[in-house]
């Protein structure tokens, strides 16, 4: 009895000891060094990401012009005021139309392109070359793309109307027509974004084992059937990723759409990001601007959470 007791107690002492052992003095020194390694990253991220993030929420509850010392707490008034600010609903519609339109066009275009590039008729070199060609605009800055497209859309002197005239068509007022200008901005954004999705789609397509297609072909499936029943289901994860990342990019875009259309005509192409910038740096309404910024952060966080859930589900694949 007493012997058993000693054995148990010595056993538990051993266990406690081993738990301690796992973080031996060597381990503890390593952990201390590791923590030191995190210091610069942590400081920078706290100071320049987390602090501003907390502050934008705080500002959004205050009436503040950004300069004066006194910030008046006004609760949710900035948010309540938003719908009555000039052009708010036009902005909401324009932002949503821009995000949805850009995403839809980018996905369709890049999926078709990726399929064309994945075709086994193409050699490695051709595939790489075309992928680079389609990717190229993604390296250019939003400002560069915006300036180029604005010039191309010019009514009298732009290249697009020049081509229309050469084809015997009448020129189009791309940047001063309600509705059409939204489309014009979307085209420029699609041009700048498609390459990213093509690369992702192509990587996805090339990871589908060719045996699957062969087996289906042997069983007598047509090309259309193979696409519908093998390629698209296998590509579902890449499609989801591309839809989510493209829509996030579209919600975040600032200078490209601004340079193409300047938000005109009226408020019809003015986006959420451009309103944030306007309230903060042109009209000095930091509170209202911050409320809009909080809304943008919430939209993007929501899309990212969807992305996270989707990725968690398929974690076992990788």
């Amino acid at each position, binding site marked *: 009895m007493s012997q058993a007791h000693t054995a148990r107690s010595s056993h538990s002492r051993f266990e406690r000891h081993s738990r301690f052992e796992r973080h031996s003095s060597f381990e503890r020194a*390593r*952990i201390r*060094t*590791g*923590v030191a*390694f*995190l210091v*610069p*990253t942590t400081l*920078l*991220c706290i*100071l*320049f*990401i987390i*602090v501003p*993030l907390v*502050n*934008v929420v705080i*500002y959004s509850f205050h009436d503040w012009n*950004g300069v004066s010392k006194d910030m008046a707490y006004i609760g949710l008034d900035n948010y309540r005021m938003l719908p009555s600010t000039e052009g708010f609903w036009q902005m909401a519609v324009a932002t949503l139309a821009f995000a949805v339109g850009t995403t839809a066009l980018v996905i369709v275009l890049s999926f078709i*392109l990726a399929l*064309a590039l994945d075709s086994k*008729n193409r050699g490695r070199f051709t595939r790489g070359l075309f992928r680079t*060609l*389609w990717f*190229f605009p993604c*390296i*250019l*800055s939003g*400002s*560069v793309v915006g*300036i*180029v*497209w604005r*010039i*191309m859309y*010019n009514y009298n*002197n732009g290249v697009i109307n020049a081509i229309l005239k050469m084809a015997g068509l009448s020129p189009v007022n791309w940047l001063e027509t309600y509705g059409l200008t939204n489309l014009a901005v979307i085209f420029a954004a699609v*041009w700048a974004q498609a390459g990213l999705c093509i*690369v*992702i789609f192509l990587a996805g397509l090339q990871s589908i084992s060719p045996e699957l297609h062969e087996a289906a072909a042997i069983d007598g499936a047509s090309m259309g059937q193979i696409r519908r029943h093998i390629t698209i289901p296998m590509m579902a994860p890449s499609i989801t*990723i591309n839809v989510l*990342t493209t829509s*996030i990019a579209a919600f*975040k875009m*600032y200078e490209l759409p601004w340079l193409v259309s300047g938000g005109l005509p009226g408020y019809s192409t003015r986006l959420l990001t451009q309103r*944030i910038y306007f309230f*903060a*740096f042109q009209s000095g309404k*930091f509170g209202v601007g*911050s409320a809009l*910024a*909080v809304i*943008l*952060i919430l939209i*993007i*966080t929501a899309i*990212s959470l969807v992305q996270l859930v989707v*990725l968690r589900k398929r974690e076992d694949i*990788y």
Partner: protein
Amino acid sequence: MKVFKRVLGSLSLALSTAVFWLPIYYFVIGAFKKRTDIVKFPLVVRPEMISFDNYAYAIKKMKLFQALGNTGFITLVSLAMVVLFGSLAGFAIARINHRGFRIYYSSIIALMVIPFIGALIPLVVLIKNMGLYGSLWGNVLIQAAWNLPFSVFLYTGFMRTLPKELEEAAYIDGCSTFGVYLRIFLPLLKPVTATCLIRAGIGIWNDYLVSASILNNVRKPTLMVAIYAFFGQYVSEYGYAFAGIIMASLPIIALFALLQKYFIKGLVAGAIKG
């Protein structure tokens, strides 16, 4: 029939690529042409049209060398921070087995979600309060901070794949943890560093928002801010604008050409893992 389909497929691919490249063709030839030629013959370039006047004018008007210096300084210094701090943090998270590091990792990764423009207003206030308004250093610190989460993500992912035996021998030989990072891991990090450099480099080089909000656009222009000099309410001289955007983009295009392989790798990794 099959051959016909194949030819048709290749033809439509070539044609759509040509249409897609039209804007680039247009501004590259336009940069060498006078305004009247750009408007009258938008898609044609003949030897007698070519001149370098646009470049000469654009270099002066956008203060090219000053802007290049500013953008270059911001990009180089912030990239150095992104690589150094990111690899240190990634090393700690990936190679030291403690729950705390894993929790830390999740919180850093979560920061990748936040849109920069959402935090822009308080950031400008912060930079003013720190006395960094108008200074390139404010720009450097912001760029470093906002690019670090992705860098930590890349380095952690890469270093997790390396075998454990790698550092064990070094520790037994009495090497310090920092020594292991410096002598064993750092030399192995070249590919992931290339990915990190090109990915963050493009974003920093092409940035407009940070520079426009916290620098004095006249006294300290960056390249992407300087090209706005050609973009008043009335863009009249297309040739200047084209020459300007080409010069502003060339360095980053060259870097991309060098590191393209790594860029694609990082893109795919980022999309698959988060």
